């Protein structure tokens, strides 16, 4: 669809790409003007640590699934399972490094289940991960006597446990370091490895990948395992920050992660999911959440305003892309 694009349509596509950047600049300028505290260094850092880092990691995971032509509705389940395994191992007195590995494994298990359903049986990713979401919710309720949070006693929490959520590396908060590592790592994987190229090609035209003699199902399986493994990192950070595991709490990230990923697609000339776009999408959502909070707008109106902003960015992005493909 890109090959026969005329110069007129590519300039229109250029416009579509500016929608996200323009929205970002405008929102940033508005908040700087109406809420003086917004532009302070301390506030911007808190935006990055509290709003940006966690959502960025989940949204990057989601971007992988969407780039491969699918979607993963069970990222929240992976977060929860990681959190549950982490907390349980710490409560059982295991050393922190082992508990971290166990947590990652717990989250990745969700991805293995998805991979079996999607690659093994061939269920569409939406339905497979929707099923996983439900089964996962029920499993967590069974594991926790009907959905009771699992607290870590404040006295018994080792200092190392708090490192992921509260620690710093070279003066930079650990969640932010992890987010940047994930962003950089996934960017390199998608753009510089064979695996990344196959994932992107699968999202554009899966049949071509299959006809090229590539073992598509193996790559798809790996994609969904990777998505859960990345999401599991968030489970560890959240648990380390709040020292409690709350069943099915990870789903709170789901809709924003999908939103950020698809807002990010407007940045790409061909409307494909991409890491920089997703990061910009997450940044936009983060500063909107923070700016609305500082502006003192009624909490409930904040949700309306955020929803409207996402809606209009998507509308402009898609309308421009449609105009471009018609030209």
């Amino acid at each position, binding site marked *: 669809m890109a090959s026969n694009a005329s110069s007129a349509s590519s300039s229109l596509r250029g416009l579509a790409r500016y929608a996200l950047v323009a929205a970002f600049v405008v929102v940033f300028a508005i908040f700087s003007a109406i809420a003086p505290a917004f532009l302070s260094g301390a506030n911007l850092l808190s935006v990055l640590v509290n709003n940006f880092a966690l959502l960025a990691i989940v949204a990057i995971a989601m971007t992988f699934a969407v780039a491969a032509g699918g*979607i993963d509705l069970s990222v929240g389940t992976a977060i929860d399972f990681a959190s549950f395994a982490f907390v349980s191992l710490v409560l059982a007195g295991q050393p922190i490094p082992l508990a971290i590995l166990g947590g990652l494994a717990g989250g990745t298990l969700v991805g293995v289940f998805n991979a079996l*359903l999607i690659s093994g*049986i*061939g*269920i*569409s990713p*939406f*339905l*497979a991960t*929707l*099923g*996983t*979401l*439900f*089964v*996962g*919710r*029920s*499993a967590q*309720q*069974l594991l926790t006597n*009907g*959905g009771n949070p699992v607290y870590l006693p404040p006295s018994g929490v080792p200092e190392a446990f708090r490192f992921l959520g509260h620690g710093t590396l070279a003066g930079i908060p650990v969640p932010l370091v992890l987010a940047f590592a994930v962003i950089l790592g996934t960017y390199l994987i998608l753009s510089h490895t064979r695996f990344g190229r196959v994932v992107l090609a699968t999202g554009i035209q899966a049949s071509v990948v299959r006809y090229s003699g590539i073992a598509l199902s193996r790559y798809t399986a790996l994609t969904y395992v990777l998505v859960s493994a990345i999401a599991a990192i968030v489970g560890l950070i959240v648990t380390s920050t709040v020292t409690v595991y709350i069943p099915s709490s990870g789903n709170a990230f789901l*809709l924003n992660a*999908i*939103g950020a990923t*698809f807002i990010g697609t407007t940045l790409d000339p061909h409307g494909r999911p991409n890491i920089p776009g997703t990061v910009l999408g997450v940044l936009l959502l983060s500063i909107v959440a923070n700016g609305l909070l500082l502006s003192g707008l*009624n*909490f*409930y*109106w*904040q*949700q*309306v*305003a*955020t*929803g*409207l902003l*996402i*809606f209009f960015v*998507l*509308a402009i992005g*898609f*309308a421009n*892309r*449609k105009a471009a493909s018609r030209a």
Partner: protein
Amino acid sequence: MSVDAAHLSTALSAPVRHETGATKTATGAFGRRLAVLALRQGSMAVFIGVLVYFSIAAPYFFTVGNIGNVLGQSAIAGVLAIGLTIVIIAGGSNVVTGGIDLSLAANMGLSAAVYASLLQAGQGDAVAIIGALGTGLVIGAINAAAITLAGIVPLLATLAVMNVVAGLELVLTQNTVVPASSDFLSAVSASGPFGIPVLAYVLLGFAALVAALVQYTPLGLRLYAVGEFPEAARAAGLRVKLFISGAFLASGLCGGFAGILSVSYLSGSTTGAGDMLLPVVVTALLGTVFSRRLVPTIGGTLLATLFVSSLINGFQLLNISSTLVSGVQGLLILLVVSATTLLQRKGNQ
């Protein structure tokens, strides 16, 4: 329940596995037909098997009063699932690019809040009904415009609308319960003839009406054509976008209608309507196995709604933890789509 799940899995997978081994010749086509038959009959058999099991294990289950309760408790989810089914029929079964309406549950919440708030403001039931249905219709119109005019894929358009609508509900109610009572609301939530709740009759009547429209009129046939073969439908002169817009308007209206039922059932608007979304999506998708050609139908969706409600009800009567319900729903959807996927994969080869 595990017995029934195991029964379902063997009922579904045995013929499918046999079929996978078959060649891609006439035998394959025959095997496929056999498997479709097994899947359809299998799901009905499981439904009936579950009903029989509950009736034996909990004698109260199979009484007119309890069946009426199950129907009445299904009304709100059923109306929403029927609305979603219309969208899935018109949009095609690809859930990402095709028909899906994630704003339905939030729509119900806002419509219910509008209804309750209008009553609180001293308006009559007539005004409140118009307000609730109008709210649903406006939400449907915004979805339709975003999808057909701006070209946003339904999954995202309705996701964004869902966020806005859920926010508006919070603004309107300040996240509190708005109580509402009127003669009309009491009449709807009361018991009707034979001691069966009026809501049960409402659900059956509504389903019959929509089923008549969708399954037995040229309009409905065109709706299926638009969803399954948009290119062919366009070539045949159907205005595809008009049909898709209509489907989202209808779905919005269902959201408003469900809002009214929910105000009546709960004597007011409540928070947390969004929790209904995923169960409703699962129900609508589950409905396809209760149809003859494994396509979304109104009747199939109604059966799926009743199936899920019977499960919840039976679990309550047997004192089984209700937390298992979402797990069973998840397993059901996975079993069902596994079986249909294996069938379709075979059919496409």
